[in-house]
C-alpha cells in the first residue's frame, strides 16, 4: 500500500487529527502547484502506540502549520504513512513507522 522505499516531505495546515482505532489519521490541507488547496490523509499507528511517542487527541489544532515526513501511497493518491511530524517551533514527533522508515531514508524534499 505504501512505498517504503520513498520518504517524502510535505508542508500543510492541519484540518483534523483522528485519534481512533485501528489507525490514527492526520488530515492536512496542502497547497498544490496551482495554489489550490488539496486534502491529504496520513495514516499512523494506533492511539496507544502514538501516545507512547508523545501524541495525544489534542496534539494538533486546526490551522497548525506543520511539516510531515511520510511514505507515499503506491497508487499516487493524496495520502501516505506518517513517519514524522515537525511543528512550526521545530519540535519533532516520530510515529511508529515501519522498519525501513524515514530514519534510514531521509532525503527527497517531497511535493512542495
Amino acid at each position, binding site marked *: 500500500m505504501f512505498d517504503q522505499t520513498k520518504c517524502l516531505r510535505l508542508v500543510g495546515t492541519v484540518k483534523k487529527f483522528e485519534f481512533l482505532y*485501528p*489507525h490514527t489519521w492526520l488530515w492536512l490541507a496542502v497547497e498544490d502547484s496551482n495554489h489550490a488547496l488539496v*486534502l491529504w*490523509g496520513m495514516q499512523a499507528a494506533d492511539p*496507544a*502506540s502514538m501516545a507512547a511517542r508523545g501524541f495525544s487527541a489534542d496534539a494538533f489544532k486546526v490551522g497548525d502549520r506543520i511539516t510531515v515526513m511520510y511514505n507515499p501511497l503506491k*497508487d499516487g*493518491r493524496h495520502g501516505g504513512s506518517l513517519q514524522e511530524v515537525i511543528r512550526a517551533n521545530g519540535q519533532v514527533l516520530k510515529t511508529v513507522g515501519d*522498519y525501513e522508515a524515514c530514519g534510514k531514508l531521509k532525503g527527497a524534499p517531497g511535493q512542495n
Partner: protein
Amino acid sequence: MITACRQSKHGTKLAKLACVVMTGFLLYGIAPRVSAQDTSFDPAHVWADLSGTWDVTQDGVNGKHGSYAVCCAGKAEWVPLTPKYRKIRDDFAKLPEYTVAKNTNNMADCITPGVPATLEHPILWEFLLTPGRVTFVAMDGSVRHIWTDGRPFPEDLSPSPQGYSIGHWENRTLVVQTRAISHKSDLFIAGHIKVNPTTRVVERFTVVNSSDLELEVTVTDPEIFTRPYTYHRSFTKIPGTFDVGCSANNRDNGEGGVDLTPPQ
C-alpha cells in the same frame, strides 16, 4: 509439636492423640500452600520485568532475520518455503495491488491474525501472569492461554485461531509451544499463506532487562517449509495500557487499499 504431644508425660493416650490431631490441624492451617507442580509463577523473579505493555522496536535482532513479510513480501529468499508454497508466494506477489484477492489479511477484516502472525503486526500486547497460566492479551483482541502448570499437550486437540499453548521457563525466557492452530490463522502478516493444523510454533520470549524483551519464533511445517523457519523481533515496555478495538475508524477499503474519504 506433634512429637511434644507424644512425649508428654501428662495426660491419657486419648488426650495425647487429641493433641497430635489438633496440632496437625493447626500446622495445616498456617502452612503455606505449595503445589508440587506449580513452578510457573514468578520464576527467577521475572514477573515484575515481564509484566507491562510491550511495543515492537525492531524487526530482526542483532543481524538475525526479522519476520519475512516486513522484510519485503515475496522477495525474502532466505525463507525456506517448499516449491508449492514458493509458487503461492510468487502468484500472490503478481496480483494487482488493490484487489479483493490481494486483501487476504485477517487484520484487514478486524479478525485476529492468530498464531503466529499476531506478533508480526505492530500492535501492543501484554502478559498476565497467574499461577499455572500466562495469558497473552493483544490490542487486536487476541487472548491466548499459555499453560505453565507442567501439563502435556492433550491427545485430542481441536484447531482454534490461537491454538493450544503450553509453556515453561528457562531462566528468564518463557518458551511457548503451540499446536492445533486453525487453518484460518495467518502464517505471515500479508495473509497469503495460512497455517495448517499440523503447523507447530515455538516462541521464546526472553526478558533482556526491565524494559526490553526479545522474541524468537520458530515455525515448523514440512508442507510449508523445507526446514524450521526462524525469525526475531524486539520489544520495549511502554507506560500505560491499551484499548482493544479495531473498527472505530477502519479505513481499509476491503480491496487491499485505503479509504481516503474526508472525515466529517
